[in-house]
């Protein structure tokens, strides 16, 4: 449905227009006096958002406490870094970004409550936040009712699209298909064993993966297993893996279970340098807890690795470490969270307004050339065009880039033939 419109964006005329718009912030950035030239608040804010002549307020809504704090801390750090950098280069439409941070406390109703508070009381212009699908689903009706704008960083299962959300992580087909194609071609893999945590993301992802393995790659799924969130015992399933001898173990186990799974896999004598394992749930953040020695040799399929060798990433990683400590690692979602404030800034400047409706319409086609992952562009469906990459875990907890798609992969949250 969106293809036509998107091709329109690539026409030479539109591209020139876009380039022109991209140049606008550069002009406002130059002299300190640019604040004086900032457009009048009444012109850029017609819906009563928290925008003054010098400041604009956004919300950060993640879990700083509770189970999910493990994962969401990185996102908070990345968003703060992005805001700091944007402010250092002149802000948005000549206004400094001020943020209000709320704690979702790993509790989904709390997320909805805090989102409402940010939109209704604080009148924030945008919210960077949420991590689990459950928290996003809780916040979504609030965003739609009060017409807010959410920048959501996590790779997720797809099957959703909203005027009020920009999805800066990959949806499932973007993340999974290229990885499966690669491993089928490279390793001649024919048989796959799926193991995941028992909730919506792994189940939807595995459904997509199964269809792809069976219909496209003509391979076989020899096992599909789910364990309750927080399970710490995987010896039985590891025995099943040994019995079925799959070419590839495909995993989307999350949280504390992840650590238990890889430690027990290693203890059971499964050598990941010989047994191919493809995961879509382990980033550098998770390896911190798992321990590089337990997972070295595994392949991960996502869009960003801290070790990516490109100019943007080479400035991003040191900046992040400078702010948050030398030992901090940066995973896929952390990078996606970093994109949120930048994409919002670029969209505001393209729209010439903070109004949510105008931002929602202006979003498609917005490109961010400074993304640490390379280059991203917002699609008509509010997801990002991005490359998919396969990395191999090393002993030091970093990934070595093994493969990346030649072109950007189109986001397809409602994949035909995969549901």
């Amino acid at each position: 449905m969106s293809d036509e419109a998107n091709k329109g964006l690539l026409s030479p005329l539109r591209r020139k227009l876009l380039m022109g718009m991209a140049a606008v912030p550069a002009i406002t950035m130059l002299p300190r006096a640019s604040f004086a030239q900032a457009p009048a608040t009444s012109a850029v804010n017609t819906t009563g958002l928290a925008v003054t002549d010098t400041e604009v307020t956004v919300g950060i809504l993640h879990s700083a406490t509770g189970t999910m704090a493990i994962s969401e801390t990185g996102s908070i750090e990345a968003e703060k870094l992005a805001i700091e950098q944007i402010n250092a280069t002149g802000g948005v439409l000549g206004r400094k970004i001020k943020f209000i941070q709320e704690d979702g406390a790993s509790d989904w109703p709390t997320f909805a409550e805090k989102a409402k508070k940010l939109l209704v009381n604080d009148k924030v212009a945008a919210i960077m936040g949420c991590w689990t699908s459950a928290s996003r689903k809780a916040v979504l009706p609030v965003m739609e009712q009060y017409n807010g704008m959410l920048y959501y960083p996590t790779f997720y299962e797809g099957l959703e699209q909203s005027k009020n959300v920009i999805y800066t992580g990959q949806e499932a087909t973007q993340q999974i298909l290229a990885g499966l194609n690669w491993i089928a071609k490279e390793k001649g893999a024919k048989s796959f064993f799926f193991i995941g945590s028992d909730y919506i993301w792994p189940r939807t992802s595995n459904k997509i993966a199964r269809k792809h393995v069976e219909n496209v790659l003509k391979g076989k799924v020899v096992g599909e297993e789910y364990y309750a969130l927080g399970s710490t015992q995987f010896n039985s399933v590891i025995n099943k893996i040994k019995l079925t001898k799959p070419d590839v173990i495909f995993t989307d186990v999350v949280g504390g279970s992840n650590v238990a799974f890889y430690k027990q896999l290693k203890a059971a004598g499964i050598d990941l340098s010989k047994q191919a394992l493809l995961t879509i749930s382990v980033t550098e953040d998770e390896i911190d807890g798992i321990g590089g020695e337990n997972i070295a040799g595994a392949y991960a399929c996502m869009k960003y690795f801290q070790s990516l060798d490109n100019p943007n990433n080479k400035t991003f990683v040191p900046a992040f470490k400078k702010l948050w400590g030398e030992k901090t690692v940066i995973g896929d979602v952390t990078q996606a969270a970093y994109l949120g404030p930048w994409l919002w800034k670029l969209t505001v400047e393209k729209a010439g307004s903070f109004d949510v409706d105008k931002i929602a319409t202006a979003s498609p086609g917005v490109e961010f050339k400074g993304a640490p992952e390379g280059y991203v562009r917002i699609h008509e469906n509010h997801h990002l065009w991005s490359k998919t990459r396969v990395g191999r875990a090393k002993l030091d907890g970093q990934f070595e880039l093994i493969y990346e798609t030649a072109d950007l992969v189109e986001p397809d949250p409602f994949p035909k033939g995969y549901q």
Partner: protein
Amino acid sequence: MFGDYSLGDLGSIFVMQGFAGLILFSVYVLMALGLAIIFGQMGVINMAHGEFMILGAYVTWMTSNLFQTYLPSLFSGYFFLAMILAFVASGALGMLVEWVLIRHLYKRPLDTLLATWGLSLILQQAYRSVFGAREVGVELPQWMLGSLHVTDSIEVPINGVFVMCLTVLITVCVAYVMYKSRWGRQVRAVVQNRIMAGAVGINTEKVDRYTFGLGCGIAGVAGSAFTMIGSTGPTSGQLYIVDTFLVVVFGGAASLLGTIASAFSISQTQSTLEFFLSGSMAKVLTLLAVVGILMLRPQGLFALKVRK
């Protein structure tokens, strides 16, 4: 489902599966022992049991870091010291908690549930503030990783064997202390009749404090051992608490033998079902079976008198 496999394959898988069940059994016993003492002997519903375990895990992590920095030559043996330190740290915290909080609640056992639940939240946030919200990776000495290669298809995980030995050792120690030593007799006397025990000259407050400390200390050792098989983060303790209570309640409070029998039956059911069904279904069926049996035998598998 076995049609495609050779007899040799099947044989070795059954051996491996047997080990998997035994390892799960040891893990259950180890995590439930501390609680069996606290809940079973003292009637305190300790919801913070998981957090005492994680304190042990963090102590292990710190010890490992210390050894890596200052004594790299002795790194291969650090784990034993770490377990002792974990016991001391969790035990000391347990005694402090007993003195500050629990001793005021002996007459209101249900309130201990709320108080220790609050304590668990406080401890989680404390870990988060001190050690950071992210999980930490505990590095193990080389000899504790990997597996013993028995035949081509039978591999025994070393950490599993380690947990088994540790469980046997601790169970024997606890059984000795509780049933043979003078102090154990005092504990049981206090459990059976607090007033009479006091009247014959037993310092019941002191006995309470040490009993609680011992339970927490064992939780610390368990947490230390579980760094080999699980994660170490501020909320990792929550992963164990449900299973722990399940084992203790099913076994019948106040009975060490009950705890062991219950850990054995739950782990074997779970592990066998996991092999034939999926992980989630295995859990559902195990829980259903436990609920069914508890309906018929509300006092658990083995029951002794509990302090009222």
